[in-house]
């Protein structure tokens, strides 16, 4: 839900339901990093309601587009994190398997009486 002015769409407050600090802080970080943003912040009006207000003020671009771009950036970052993490876990498992095989073959070599 967007609360803004009809004439000036470069500043608006977006009220998201069923959200909390998890998404709002991450979004605020990506919004801040966008050079088109002059001001951004979030607040939680009451801790018992699952509602977050995100305020975005830009240098002329519509606030809605800037927020959408920030969400897209966050999604791309998450995808990259996931792929890097999966690769790192695979590499770790592979290197551990190699180590286990090396230790195993060392033991078997010493046992063989050739």
């Amino acid at each position, binding site marked *: 839900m967007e609360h803004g002015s009809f004439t000036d769409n470069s500043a608006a407050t*977006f009220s998201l339901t069923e959200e909390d*600090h998890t998404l709002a802080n991450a979004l605020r970080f990506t919004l801040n990093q*966008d050079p088109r943003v002059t001001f951004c912040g979030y607040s939680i009006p009451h801790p018992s309601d699952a509602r977050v207000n995100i305020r975005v003020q830009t240098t002329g671009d519509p606030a809605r587009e800037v927020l959408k771009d920030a969400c897209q950036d966050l999604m791309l970052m*998450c995808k990259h*994190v*996931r792929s890097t993490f999966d690769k790192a876990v695979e590499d770790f498992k592979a290197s551990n398997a190699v180590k286990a095989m090396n230790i195993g073959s060392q033991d078997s070599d010493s046992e063989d009486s050739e």
Partner: protein
Amino acid sequence: MAGKEEGRGEEKNKFSIWDLPDVPMGQLPPHLELQRSRVLCNKDAPIHTESVQYSGAYASMGLDNSLRLDHFCHNFRVEVVRLTDEDMEFDMIGIDAAIANAFRRILIAELPTMAIEKVLIANNTSIIQDEVLAHRLGLIPISVDPRLFEYMTENDQPNEKNTIVFKLHVQCKRGSPRFTVKSDDLKWLPNGSELVKESRNATSDSSSKPETYTSFSCSQDTLSEFAKNPIAPRHPDIIIAKLGPGQEIELEVHAVKGMGKTHAKWSPVATAWYRMLPEVVLLEEVEDDLAEELKSKCPVNVFDIEDLGKGRKRATVARPRACTLCRECIRGDEWEKRVAIRRVRDHFIFTIESTGALPPEVLFTEAVKILEDKCERVITELS
């Protein structure tokens, strides 16, 4: 005054301040770089804890602080330190605290798991009260992949896609010693509930099967995942209750899917936490007696002694990663100007301890997927 300066500028053929040789272009001077990338942990309190996120923060220095996605993708690294079935420790380098915290929050509260929710008690003559027994049963971790099940809403009937049924029937015979009820006494019922519901109409329907509390259309052990690994609690030796002679417990439990947000029994991690990489720096040479003193002060042996020859010794930082930030090394007179403790702001040491339903690397991948889904939901709401 202004006129005179303009005149002078025109005479000198105006030049840009960036052309001067000693002005750093696109790079911060070292003291600002320290402020931007490190948290300084002083004796009384840490400073520079807020990360400088604003894109235009260093605009006057010519440094673009904005997030360039390619810059992030290029610099981001993950290094796994330890990985077992139950826990893992890995380093994330190049990410900000806001996102690392989002992952931590999702791991604890928004990853679904299966846990016991409904307890149908037929007989409980033990000294453990019904509600205490039900509470304890709810906290038992069940080793089953929650992705194979669906959520059960209020209007749904419990069926084989959203419920797991266990049975517990134990008694301690008269004359036998005290009996401990352990979690492996919970038997899985793949065919659904066996407790019969009392039906109101005297003229029951023609089907010979009586109505039970669940309506399973097929047996759960026909599914390939469960045929070989029967569903059971993760640890068989969790003590549920203790029975004296003559006491009996007979009950049936239904386990459903839920999130840690609703109740902590549905949290898939024992806990998940992160800390920033500690950096211990010796600001001046610490030699001889002072070096020995410094080494003995640290409870986790961060410092080591290096021989310089001729009987002289010097202290070096050997294991900064082990530093627990106890600040013992800067306590006392004048130690603060010899040792500086800092934290690297974008290097996080993540530890995830799983309760056993899913292995920790799968948990982290699912948490990242959930953050992506949240973003997607916001985008669709905005469009």
